[in-house]
C-alpha cells in the first residue's frame, strides 16, 4: 500500500498532535507543527519535522485561525492537514477552505461535517435512516416561551444542548420549569463562546444512561465497517474521563445491532473517513442516537488496543483515496482496554483547572500500558487550552485484569507541580461500582461529589518529609567499575543477610 503524501500539517497541539506525528513518522510522512506563543516549549513542536509559529496564545488567534493555518501549510508545502480533535476538527468552513485550496483535509467532506455538525439537523436526517432517536426537538429555538412549551411536551427532566456543540459545553440539565430561563441563558452564552454559535435545543433527559459510541471507518469507494463500541459513561462536568471497550453492558447481539445502526447513520450522512456515532443506552437496553463526531475521538486508543489497528493510519490512507484493507469479518476484538484521561485539574475543588509548571514527571510503563502524552518534566502547562495532559491506556486479557493494571499504572504515574485527576481516577477505577460494571453518566455525581482523597498515608508523607530533610540530596549510587563502594543505605542488621 503506497500513498503519495510527503508532508502533513497537524493543526493541533498537545498529546493528540504528538500521537498523530508518531504515525506519520511510521508512514514516512514529514510532519509540520503549528504553535502559538504559549506553546513555544510544547512537546508537539519538539516531535515535528518542521514548525511554524502562528500567533498569540488565544485560540482565535492561533489554533482556530483558519487563514494562518492555511498560510502555514502553503509556506511549508504541506499537502494535507490533520485537525486532531477539538479546535478546527469539526469546523465545516475549515474543511471547505482546505478543499478550495487543494489541500487534503484528513476527515470527512465539508458537506458531511456541516450536516452532522448541526445536532438538530443531524437528528432530523437520522429519523429517516433506521437509527433510533431520543425524544426531543429537531430544530434549535431561542424563544424562551416556546422552549417552555416543548419542555413540557417532552416531559421534565429535559436537557438543554448547544446545536453546534460537543464535549459538554453549553449543556445543562433542567429538572423543573423554573430552572429553564437561567439554564437557557448560561447554555447559550457558553455555546456562543465555545462554538461561535449560541443556538440551543431540548431533548429528553435520561437519568442514568450509559454513553456508548461506535467507531466506524468509511472509504471513498463506499466500503464501511464498524470497530465495535466504547463505553464513555464516566464523566465529570459532562466530559468523559474514563472510557472502556468492550462495554460490560453490551452483548454480542446488541453490539451487532448498534454497529448496524451506526453504519446506517454513516450511510445516511454519506460518511467518509473515521467517525464515531454516539448513543445513549438506557437501563432497559434501548439505545438512542445522540450525534456523530466527525473526527478522531480522544478515546480512540482503546479501540486500537483491542482491534490492533492504527486509526490515524487508516484516516490518512482513506484521505489519500485508498480503499479499506479490512472487511467487517476481519475485525476481531481481543481482550479489554480502559483509558483514563489525565487532566490538569484539582479534583478536590470541583475539577478547577490547574495550569502551571510540571516540576517532575514519571510515566508508567511495562506490560499492557500505553501513554499518549503531551507533556514533559519542566514543561509549563498553559492556561489557554484544554486541561488534557495525557491519556493512560491499558490493555489486558479481561476487564478484571484491565482494572488491576490501570490501578497499577495510576500508582506508577507521578506528576509534581500541578494538580491532576490521577488520585481521583484511582478511586473511581478501584470503586466497587466500577468493578461491577454498574457505570452510567451520573456515577461521579452520585458517588464522588464532593470528593476528598482518603490520604491514608499521611504518616508516610511526614516520614518522607523528614527523610528528605535529613538525607543528603544527591544521587548516591556510583559505577562500581570506578572501584568505589558507596553505602547509600544505612545498613540495619535485621534487614540484610
Amino acid at each position: 500500500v503506497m500513498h503519495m503524501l510527503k508532508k502533513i500539517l497537524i493543526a493541533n497541539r498537545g498529546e493528540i498532535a504528538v500521537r498523530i506525528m508518531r504515525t506519520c513518522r511510521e508512514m514516512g510522512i514529514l510532519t509540520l507543527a503549528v504553535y502559538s506563543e504559549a506553546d513555544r516549549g510544547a512537546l508537539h513542536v519538539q516531535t515535528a519535522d518542521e514548525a511554524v509559529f502562528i500567533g498569540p496564545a488565544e485560540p482565535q488567534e492561533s489554533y482556530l485561525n483558519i487563514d494562518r493555518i492555511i498560510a502555514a501549510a502553503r509556506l511549508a508545502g504541506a499537502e494535507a492537514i490533520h485537525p486532531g480533535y477539538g479546535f478546527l476538527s469539526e469546523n465545516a468552513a475549515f474543511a471547505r477552505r482546505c478543499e478550495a485550496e487543494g489541500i487534503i483535509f484528513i476527515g470527512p467532506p465539508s458537506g458531511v461535517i456541516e450536516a452532522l455538525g448541526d445536532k438538530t439537523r443531524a437528528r432530523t436526517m437520522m429519523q429517516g435512516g433506521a437509527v433510533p432517536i431520543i425524544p426531543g426537538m429537531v430544530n434549535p429555538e431561542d424563544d424562551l416561551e416556546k422552549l417552555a412549551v416543548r419542555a413540557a411536551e417532552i416531559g421534565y427532566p429535559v436537557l438543554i444542548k448547544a446545536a453546534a456543540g460537543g464535549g459538554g459545553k453549553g449543556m445543562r440539565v433542567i429538572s423543573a420549569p423554573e430552572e429553564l430561563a437561567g439554564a437557557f441563558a448560561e447554555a447559550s452564552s457558553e455555546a456562543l463562546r465555545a462554538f461561535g454559535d449560541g443556538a440551543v435545543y431540548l431533548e429528553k433527559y435520561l437519568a442514568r444512561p450509559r454513553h456508548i459510541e461506535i467507531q466506524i471507518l468509511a472509504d471513498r469507494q463506499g466500503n464501511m465497517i464498524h470497530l465495535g463500541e466504547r463505553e464513555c459513561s464516566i464523566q465529570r462536568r459532562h466530559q468523559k474521563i474514563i472510557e472502556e471497550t468492550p462495554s460490560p453492558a453490551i452483548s454480542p447481539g446488541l453490539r451487532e445491532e448498534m454497529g448496524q445502526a451506526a453504519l446506517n447513520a454513516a450511510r445516511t450522512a454519506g460518511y467518509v473517513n473515521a467517525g464515531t456515532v454516539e448513543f445513549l443506552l438506557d437501563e432497559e437496553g434501548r439505545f438512542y442516537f445522540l450525534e456523530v463526531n466527525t473526527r478522531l475521538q480522544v478515546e480512540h486508543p482503546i479501540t486500537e488496543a483491542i482491534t490492533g489497528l492504527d486509526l490515524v493510519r487508516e484516516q490518512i490512507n482513506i484521505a489519500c483515496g485508498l480503499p479499506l484493507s479490512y472487511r467487517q469479518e476481519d475485525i476481531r476484538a481481543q481482550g479489554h482496554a480502559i483509558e483514563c484521561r489525565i487532566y490538569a485539574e484539582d479534583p478536590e475543588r470541583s475539577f478547577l483547572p490547574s495550569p502551571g509548571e510540571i516540576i517532575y514527571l514519571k510515566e508508567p510503563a511495562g506490560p499492557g500500558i500505553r501513554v499518549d502524552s503531551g507533556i514533559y518534566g519542566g514543561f509549563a502547562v498553559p492556561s489557554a487550552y484544554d486541561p488534557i495532559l495525557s491519556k493512560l491506556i491499558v490493555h489486558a486479557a479481561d476487564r478484571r485484569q484491565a482494572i488491576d493494571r490501570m490501578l497499577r499504572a495510576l500508582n506508577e504515574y507521578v506528576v509534581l507541580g500541578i494538580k491532576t485527576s490521577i488520585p481521583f481516577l484511582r478511586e473511581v477505577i478501584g470503586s466497587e461500582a466500577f468493578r461491577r460494571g454498574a457505570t452510567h453518566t451520573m456515577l461521579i455525581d452520585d458517588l464522588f461529589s464532593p470528593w476528598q482523597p482518603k490520604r491514608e498515608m499521611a504518616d508516610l508523607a511526614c516520614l518522607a518529609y523528614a527523610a528528605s530533610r535529613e538525607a543528603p540530596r544527591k544521587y548516591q549510587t556510583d559505577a562500581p567499575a570506578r572501584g568505589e563502594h558507596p553505602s547509600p543505605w544505612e545498613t540495619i542488621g535485621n534487614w540484610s543477610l
Partner: protein
Amino acid sequence: MEYRLMLNEEERIFTVTPRPAGEGKIARLEGREYCFRSLSINANELLLEVDGRLVPIFIATEGSKTHISLRGETYLLEDQAALRVKRKERPHDLARQVTPPMPAAVIRILVIEGARVERGEALLVVSAMKMESTLAAPYPGLVKKINTTLGAQVKPGDILVEIEPEEENGD
C-alpha cells in the same frame, strides 16, 4: 529533632531520633512509632523504607511548600516556621478578596469603578482551560478600583477588584 508541619491543612507534630542500637531512625507520630531509613535516588526521588516496607517517594519543593507523591496519593506539606512568617506577610485575607481561584484570563468585566455592588453580585468572569468562573462581591460596597483589564492573565492572590465595604442591609 521535632517537626511541626501543616499537612493538607492539618497540623502534624512529630519527632525523629536516631535508632539507639544499629542505624536508621525512629519517628514518633501521634502515639505511633516507626523505624525508617531512606535512599536518595535523585533530587526528586527518594526510596523510603518504613518498618521493612519500601515506599518510593516523589518530592518537589516550591517556596515553603513541599509536594509529596507516594503510591498514587499526593500531599502538600508546609513547615510551620516558614508558615508563620508567611502569614504575617500576607496583607489581606484572601477569602474576603476578589481573586481568581486558578491562573486564568479575564474575559468579561461586569462593573465599573464607583459602582455600588451587593454581596454575591457578579463582578467579572475569568476563564482557564476553557472553564469559566464568575467572581462575585464578597460583601456589599463601592467598587474603588479595578486592577485588571480585559484579556489579562491573572493568578490566585491578585486582587482584581477593590471594594470599600458598606453596611449590609437586611438578610
